[in-house]
Every structure is written in structure tokens, then in C-alpha cells.
């Protein structure tokens, strides 16, 4: 398929567009989790998670396979509802997670300020550009014209090095291009929080670097980054703070430096030494 382009980092640093899709935007961070549990088929997969996600630092969620990293991201993003505990945005603790009902005001507004990029991006069977305008049209208010949406989508494609592919079918792009398009789609909505679940797990090193560059640019634009990865090198490059999970429990929440240099738990030490596999 198409070859990877490596000029992402440069194009990615262009200034963000000046107009906004919604008018009044109040901050939804911090997100506070208290004793969040998640069970499926009688098995407790997430056990008593309590932590806080503040605006600013890039948070890497680390842990071996099956530690619950992806579930944690989905609970935070509201794709799953906790079976116990509370999860509240901006002090609205106890009011539950924004569900999938697009209709009711508060939850939908909180949802509209977040975006998520998955390990395997799901692109729609339409053009690259239309994949971005689709996402934008879902959250536009009545005052935003189609033309503005198109311009905004075009800008997102330029910033991710996809402008020349705008009219290609999204599903026939290479793996790296597809993931960049997923990032462009998320970026175009100007989220306050961006969740990324192993965004480079299926990509070669060059495509991974391109994705890391885009994530850095999104963060530079003021978006909170919450990301899972099993790539320790990537975690060291990107983390400002680390949440370390093991078997559904949060074992450490620490600034990146102290986590990588002086982990407290034996599990984290084993994980960093490459000895803890699950």
C-alpha cells in the first residue's frame, strides 16, 4: 500500500485553527476515580481503582498483558460502566459516567470533550476527508457550516501529513496511515482529553515515530494525553507520569522519573526488568 511519509513532525507543529466548533467550553478535567471496579462473567477484572487525571502531564498506563490497562481507559472514556465505585469529571463525582446516550445534555457534553484512538482504528468506508468530517459533524452546533467543517478537517489532515490522501478511500490506506487518520479525526474535534489504547502496537518503527510525533503535537496544543503502551522505550520517551497496573489493580501512580528510576513495588521492578509477563 502507500508509503509512509516522515514529514509529520514538521507539519504537525502548525498552529491550531482559530475557530471552534462549540462556543462555551468549560473544563471537564480533573477526572477522579474512587474505588472503581469492573466485573465481567463474575470475574473481577478491575479492582478498586482510585486515581486522578489532571490537566497537563501525559499519563502512561503501564502493565503486563491482562493487567487491565485497556479496560481502565474504556472506563475513563465511558465506553464501560463500572460495577462499583465512582468516576467523576470536574468534581461531579457520583453522577456516574457519561453513557452512550447522545441526547442528554451533561453526559453528551463531557463525551464531546474527549476522544479515543484504538489499537486497531475503525475507519468508515468513505474517503479520508469524510472520515474526519463525519466526526466533526457529530459534535457541531447549528452555527457551524459544512464549509467550516470541511476546512477544519482539511487542516487536521495537513497536520498529520495526510492532505494528499484526502480523497482516497480510508480503508485501503496502510496501517500507519490509518492510525494517523484516526489521530487526525480525534485531533480535529479538539478534545480536552485524548485516550490512546496501544496506538502503535501494530505499526513498524517509522510509523510509530510518526504517531508519537503527532501525539506530542496534540499534547503541545493543550490536550491531556492518557495512553496505554507495552513498549517501555516509548513509555520512557513520552511519559510525564505513570500509572502502573497489575492484575486489575493500580500498584503505582508516580512521576515518570521516580517510577523508572526507583519503582516501589516488586511487580514494577520485575516489569521494568522485563521479567513480569502477566
Amino acid at each position, binding site marked *: 500500500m502507500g508509503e509512509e511519509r516522515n514529514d509529520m513532525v514538521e507539519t504537525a507543529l502548525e498552529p491550531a485553527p482559530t475557530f471552534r466548533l462549540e462556543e462555551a467550553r468549560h473544563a471537564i478535567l480533573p477526572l477522579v476515580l474512587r474505588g472503581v471496579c469492573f466485573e465481567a462473567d463474575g470475574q473481577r477484572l478491575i479492582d478498586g481503582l482510585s486515581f486522578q487525571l489532571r490537566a497537563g502531564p501525559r499519563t502512561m498506563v503501564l502493565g503486563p498483558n491482562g493487567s487491565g490497562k485497556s479496560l481502565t481507559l474504556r472506563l475513563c472514556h465511558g465506553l464501560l460502566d463500572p460495577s462499583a465505585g465512582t468516576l467523576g469529571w470536574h468534581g461531579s463525582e457520583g453522577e456516574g459516567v457519561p453513557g452512550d446516550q447522545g441526547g442528554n445534555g451533561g453526559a453528551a457534553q463531557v463525551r464531546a470533550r474527549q476522544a479515543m484512538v484504538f489499537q486497531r482504528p475503525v475507519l468508515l*468506508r468513505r474517503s479520508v476527508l469524510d472520515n474526519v468530517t463525519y466526526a466533526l459533524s457529530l459534535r457541531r452546533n447549528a452555527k457551524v457550516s459544512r464549509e467550516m467543517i470541511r476546512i477544519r478537517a482539511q487542516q487536521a489532515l495537513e497536520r498529520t501529513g495526510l492532505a494528499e490522501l484526502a480523497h482516497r478511500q*480510508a480503508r485501503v490506506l496502510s496501517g500507519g496511515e490509518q492510525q494517523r487518520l484516526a489521530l487526525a479525526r480525534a485531533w480535529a474535534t479538539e478534545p480536552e482529553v485524548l485516550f490512546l489504547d496501544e496506538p502503535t502496537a501494530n505499526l513498524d518503527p517509522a510509523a510509530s515515530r510518526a504517531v508519537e510525533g503527532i501525539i506530542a503535537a496534540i499534547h503541545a496544543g493543550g490536550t491531556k494525553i492518557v495512553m496505554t503502551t507495552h513498549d517501555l522505550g516509548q513509555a520512557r520517551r513520552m511519559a510525564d507520569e505513570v500509572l502502573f497496573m497489575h492484575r486489575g489493580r493500580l500498584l503505582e501512580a508516580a512521576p515518570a522519573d521516580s517510577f523508572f528510576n526507583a519503582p516501589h513495588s516488586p511487580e514494577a521492578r520485575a516489569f521494568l526488568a522485563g521479567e513480569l509477563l502477566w
Partner: protein
Amino acid sequence: MNEILAAFWHALGLLAGGDPELLEIVGLTLRVSLTAVALAAALALPLGGALALFRFPGRGALVVLLNALMGLPPVVVGLGVYLLLSRSGPLGGLGLLFTPTGMIVAQVVLVLPIVAALARQVVEDLWVEYEEQLRSLGAGPGRALWTLLWDGRHSLFTAVLAGFGRASAEVGAVLIVGGNIAHVTRVMTTAIALETSRGDLALALGLGMVLVTLSVAVNGAAFFLRDWSRLRHG
């Protein structure tokens, strides 16, 4: 054997010469079946999609019923619609019995479950893949439904073609509801049945060839469309 061969050559002659009776019958068949399929698809695609996406009490039973209705015998459908449309029936006042419109009604009943059941399957499979992404993007159930129907358009078109295959090939429903009246409600299948029993093998064979060609063309189109779509849209 000679008789059959002679009928075969005669049939080719009718086709090549554009015999008006034959053309009239083919024309009516296409009009009735295409209209029925278009109406059935307009109802069945959203219905099948909704059945795939929404959870409500009785959904399981409805899915089983729909799958069972896929194999509904055309004569039974014909009988049911006949009873509805007959002069003493609840819709008798509409005067649709023995008219092309009545035949369209019968074929809609016949085709709708097929397209709806296939559409449910297609949309349900797509939903497994798309659910998290669409919910994350903030698409409500209604928007998700249209998105999935659009993204499944090529598989769904095949489902609609399957519906057309059923409509154009059945005899029972159109025979009972239409009455096989010459120049009014005579379609290919009912004409073949009648002409064969009357001994006019040439017209029956000619119509049979058109019907087979149509069915091969429809299935060929479905095959190439799938191939093309996989290449183009991934």
C-alpha cells in the same frame, strides 16, 4: 425430441424478433418485481438494522420469526394476501385483487423478511467492529444505524438482489393474487406455467430463457460488485 428442438428455435426467433407478447410479459414482470423489491428494501433495511442495534423485550423472538419467514411458501403468502384483498376481506374496498398493485403487495410480503433478516446479520456483524468507535465519536443509536447501513451498502445490495431473485422467480403468490390474466397480470413465471400446460412450448421456453438470463445476470452482478467493492473500499 424434434418438437422440443423446433420449439427451441422458435423461442430464439421470438426473442430475436422482439415478440410483442413476450416483451409485454417481461416488462410487467420487471415492473412488478422491481417495485416490490424497492418498497421491501426501503422498509426492510432500517428494520433489519434496528433489530441488530436495539435491545428490547421480544427481540429474540422477532429475529427467529424473521428468519423463519425467509422461507415462507409463496402460495401461502398468495393465499393470505388474496384473503386480505378479496371483496369480502378487510382491504377488499381497495379493489387491488387481480391487479399488478396487488401482486406488488404480495411480493413485498415475500421479499421483506429476506432482506430484513440478511440486513440484520450484516449490520450486527458490522456493529461488533464499529460499536466502540462510533460510541466514542458520540454517534447516537439513530446515527449509528444509518452509518452502518451505509458502510454495509455492498453486502446489503447483495441482500436486495437475493430479494429480487426470489420475487422474479416465484409463481404461487402472483398466480393467486394476480390471476394470470393476459395483458393485465401475466408475468413470466405464470406465463411459463400456463403455456407449458397449453402446449405452447416456444413461448414458455423463450420466457424461460429470459428468466434464466436475468437470474444469471443478477448473480453475476452481485459477485462482481462484491469483488470490486473489496478492492476499492477495503
